[in-house]
């Protein structure tokens, strides 16, 4: 019997290419005659553009063209709304999407105003200094509470207020539940989530071939097919005239699925205008202001409980900063609203949010995509409740878990995929138990912590639980083909940004076709290879594309068995696929290779039977009826120096349930990366704007992403509760590491500093903020 790859901890197929520097990234594309672009961006958060003078820039040697909004003619138009608002009764949604170059008014620092095309990036940047824009500064909208006050300046005057959206969702009757509660706890929470800071910034290269009438675009996108379709429509080309290649990408994390970025729309257009290849690579300074981010929410939340700690209901009213435009609809605040309930059986829920336009960079999902905010509020409420009721914090969680026999569990509100928020499956206690065991909870509380306290050390523990909606539709597809060499090629429409698709997808196929995993060649992110798809987001690649690949591989397997059965004159059920051959069970010398079958299935002469498809190939699609709900527990031990207010994470444990695991090594890698970003969010990274709407943390000197020195050893383990919603039983794993990290961290810090009796209601927690809390400032 051959190895079963599904579930095996194997090394990644793509790593030799990546580690030896042979992978193609967008900036590696270098075409003859290529021009380079630089953008003049707004220095103001909010200003009227009185005039723009580009005459000096045009005179600079090496400058080929300079464009303002006026120069774009009909091509200037607001971008599409990517995600329409969900069908919630009474919803208010004001759609205002970004424009390619600002016209009349700038709405955030970094908004592109003028595009310069030159023979080199150096010249293009020199020319930016030649341009004069006459701005009339306007009062900026920075604070989301003040933004809603009467008389506040307006980001979009025609909206009439700064309200981007208002949504209320209800389950049961919170007020009635509150009336029966023994305890009601209410607090105000602040949660700020920062920017992805992917290793590779964005970049676009476009090449228009006027003879072939064909446009090729290299794009750091997570959704190449959608980009291809959109760009073709905008430029008046047929989809078959455009090829979008999303090559290797140095991290996506969500911001690279914002469609369409201003630069993304302009680079292909200008390549066609000038008949020359054009490249724009975002630099790090631009990335801080021009690539989408997440931002803060302010929650006023309330929890009603019985005195023995059972949750009767939760009420949450929050404000969400959506930035200057809302092209991604309401995905982030809806995720906050829908993730807050967590793994708990909460009969009554009232949740209301207002999304607010501000003069800041656009907000779209970044790893976790609003889930962090909700989880933080819920976990903090439980911590405070546990303290007030004198119950152990792990017990209050255990007591309120949805029991395993209550699945599918309906939360009765609408999720980001417009389907009701129904958890497909889950079993939460085993993950909690395993995490407590791995972190050594009992021993820490009873023995280690008292001992350390006696030595004057402030060490605390944090344990939190979460769920993550993953693997949403609508669909993905895949084509699996056995080549004459016996190797298998697979194409799918999703993009890949480091998730290990070249391995996990290959594992699925290798098992079906009985081939070596290294003989399965995966192509992602090239619209010339696969025509349909939506993209890599919402922890859905393995679930949705993985399932489509599984179905296609299964179909190829059937074809191979059928053909081999005819050739070998043996019944299909007596055949097996092993080591690249179809062979007779019990008589392995009677065999035919997959390569030979591929050749035979594609004859050059003779007749084939009617209804026969040539080749060992199949294309299949998969669309789940709704998302699969992953879950887990994070636990950590943190040491705090109350004098310097510095904290050090000594140990971090994640027990995660993403259903059936395809490759534990890849899942662990995903979790480790997520935890690192979560730690950044908990203690280091913060986007700080001043009252003028200027970003004060616009470089890695001030925006502090954790390095190897700040990320502790992470212990991971798995619980497998298969999802019934897809043939593989998998759930998404991409975001879980990053979601409850801040909640775990602040609980541990509070515990470490229990003798100071502080309550931490915000994240990130900086040393400066901890100092203020400790000194009651």
């Amino acid at each position, binding site marked *: 019997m051959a190895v079963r790859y599904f579930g095996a901890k194997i090394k990644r197929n793509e790593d030799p290419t990546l580690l030896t520097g042979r992978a193609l990234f967008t900036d590696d594309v270098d075409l003859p005659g290529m021009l380079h672009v630089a953008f003049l961006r707004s220095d103001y958060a909010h200003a009227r553009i009185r005039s723009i003078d580009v005459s000096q820039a045009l005179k600079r040697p090496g400058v080929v063209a300079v464009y303002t909004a006026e120069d774009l003619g009909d091509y200037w138009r607001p971008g599409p709304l990517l995600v329409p608002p969900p069908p919630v009764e009474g919803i208010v949604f004001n759609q205002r999407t970004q424009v390619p170059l600002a016209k009349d008014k700038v709405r955030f620092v970094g908004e592109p105003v003028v595009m310069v095309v030159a023979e080199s*990036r*150096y010249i293009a*940047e*020199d020319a930016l*200094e030649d341009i004069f824009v006459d701005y009339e500064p306007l009062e900026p909208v920075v604070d989301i509470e003040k933004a809603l006050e009467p008389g506040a300046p307006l980001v979009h005057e025609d909206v009439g207020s700064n309200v981007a959206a208002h949504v209320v969702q209800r389950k049961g009757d919170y007020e009635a539940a509150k009336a029966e509660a023994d305890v009601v706890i209410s607090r105000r929470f602040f949660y700020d989530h920062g920017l992805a800071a992917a290793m590779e910034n964005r970049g676009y290269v476009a090449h228009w071939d006027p003879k072939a009438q064909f446009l090729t675009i290299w794009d750091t996108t997570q959704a190449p097919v959608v980009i291809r379709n959109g760009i073709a429509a905008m430029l008046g080309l047929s989809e078959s005239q455009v090829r979008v290649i999303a090559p290797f990408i140095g991290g996506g994390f969500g911001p690279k699925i914002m469609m369409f970025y201003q630069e993304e729309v302009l680079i292909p257009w200008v390549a066609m205008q000038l008949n020359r290849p054009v490249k724009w690579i975002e*630099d*790090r*300074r631009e990335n801080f202001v021009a690539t989408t981010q997440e931002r803060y929410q302010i929650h006023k939340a309330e929890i009603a409980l019985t005195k023995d700690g059972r949750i009767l209901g939760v009420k949450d009213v929050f404000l969400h900063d959506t930035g200057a435009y809302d092209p991604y609809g309401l995905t982030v605040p809806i995720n906050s609203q829908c993730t807050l309930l967590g793994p708990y059986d909460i009969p009554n829920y009232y949740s209301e949010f207002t999304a607010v336009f501000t003069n800041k960079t656009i907000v779209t999902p970044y790893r976790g995509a609003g889930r962090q905010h909700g989880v933080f509020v819920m976990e903090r409420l439980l911590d405070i409740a546990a303290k007030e009721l004198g119950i152990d914090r792990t017990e209050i969680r255990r007591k309120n878990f949805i029991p395993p026999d209550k699945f599918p569990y309906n939360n009765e509100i609408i999720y980001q995929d417009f389907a009701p928020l129904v958890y497909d499956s889950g079993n939460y206690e085993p993950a909690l138990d395993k995490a407590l065991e791995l972190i050594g909870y009992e021993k820490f509380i009873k023995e280690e912590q008292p001992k350390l306290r006696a030595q004057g050390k402030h060490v605390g523990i944090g344990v939190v639980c979460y769920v993550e909606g993953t693997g949403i539709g609508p669909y993905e597809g895949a084509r699996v083909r056995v080549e004459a060499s016996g190797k298998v090629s697979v194409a799918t429409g999703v993009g890949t940004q480091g998730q290990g698709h070249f391995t996990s997808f290959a594992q699925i196929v290798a098992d079906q076709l009985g081939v070596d995993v290294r003989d399965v060649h995966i192509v992602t992110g090239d619209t010339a290879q696969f025509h349909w798809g939506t993209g890599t987001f919402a922890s859905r690649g393995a679930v949705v594309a993985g399932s489509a690949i599984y179905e296609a591989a299964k179909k190829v397997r059937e074809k191979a068995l059928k053909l081999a059965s005819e050739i070998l004159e043996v019944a299909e059920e007596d055949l097996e696929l092993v080591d690249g051959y179809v062979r007779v069970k019990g008589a392995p010398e009677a065999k035919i290779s997959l390569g030979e079958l591929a050749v035979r299935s594609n004859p050059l002469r003779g007749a084939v039977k009617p209804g026969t498809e040539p080749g060992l190939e199949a294309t299949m699609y998969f669309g789940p009826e709704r998302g699969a709900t992953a879950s887990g527990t994070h636990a950590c031990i943190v040491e705090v120096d109350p*004098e*310097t*207010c*510095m904290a050090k994470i000594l140990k971090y444990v994640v027990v995660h349930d993403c259903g059936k695991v395809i490759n534990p090594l890849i899942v662990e890698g995903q979790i480790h990366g997520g935890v690192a970003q979560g730690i950044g969010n908990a203690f*280091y990274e*913060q986007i*700080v704007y001043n009252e003028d709407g200027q970003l*004060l*943390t616009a*470089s890695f*000197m*001030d925006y*502090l992403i*954790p*390095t190897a*020195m*700040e990320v502790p050893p992470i212990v991971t383990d798995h619980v497998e509760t298969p999802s019934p919603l897809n043939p593989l039983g998998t759930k998404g794993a991409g975001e879980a590491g990053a979601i409850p990290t801040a909640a775990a961290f602040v609980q541990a810090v509070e515990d470490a500093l229990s003798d100071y009796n502080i309550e931490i209601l915000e994240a990130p927690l*900086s*040393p*400066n903020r901890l*100092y*203020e809390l400790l*000194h009651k*400032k």
Partner: protein
Amino acid sequence: MKPPAFKYYAPTTVEEALALLAEHGYDAKPLAGGQSLIPTMNFRLAAPAVLVDLNRISDLSYIRAADDGGVRVGAMTRHARVERDALISARAPLVHETMPHIAHPQIRNRGTYGGSLAHADPAAELPAVTVALGGKVLARSQRGERWIPAEEFFIGLFTTVLEPDELLVEVALPPLPARTGWAFDEVARRHGDFALVGAAGVITLDDRGRCADVRLVFMGVGEGPVVAREAMNILKGEEPGEEAIRAAAEKASQADIDPIGDVHASADFRRHLAKVLARRVLTKAVERAQS
């Protein structure tokens, strides 16, 4: 993030470099390790018309024993070499203790002692430590050379007394007297970041265990290294017990520094950290002086 065009020279001798500096004056900027200058140029915050690259002047890279028992460090000596040098660890242990706090190994492979002093970042370690040790620097130009005490070298944010035609060529660190202890500590958001506050302390005890000499110098709380004179005065001539050190640290944080706030730390938090660090480094310096 591309710099504007500039002229580039790579002299191989100090004399050639001095000639270039004399010729180009304020338009020229010497390039040492480039760990600050290059990013500044890429951000277009600095746009020198002429870069005088010192990296090919091998004569400027050395660590030598000085006749007075101290040590001389060539301006282009990389941090990584200083960090691992036996003479430094024997004769200037405070510098040795400080080196791992400077950024990351990759940066220490490029950054230089002289470059750090000449750049005069108020949050940099080596300016504070050099002042704490009572070091001095040698500046040369075509006009001649002069020794400048480190304490007089730094005159403001990223500003030193160097004239545009002068090159910092050497740093002299004096020997430590007997019964002298030292310590360096800092609080940084992440390992390798510029510190929110740092402190270097050097204490020499007399034969009765009282402070014959005290040096306490902060970084990150002013426009350059800040010498905590009031705090030093409290300790001078006194027995450096816990109470005296506490009082000195308190005084330092209130009277000697005037920090400003930024996104990472308010002025108030910086004062608090200065107090904590002053207490810690003075305590450790005394322990070492006593042992």
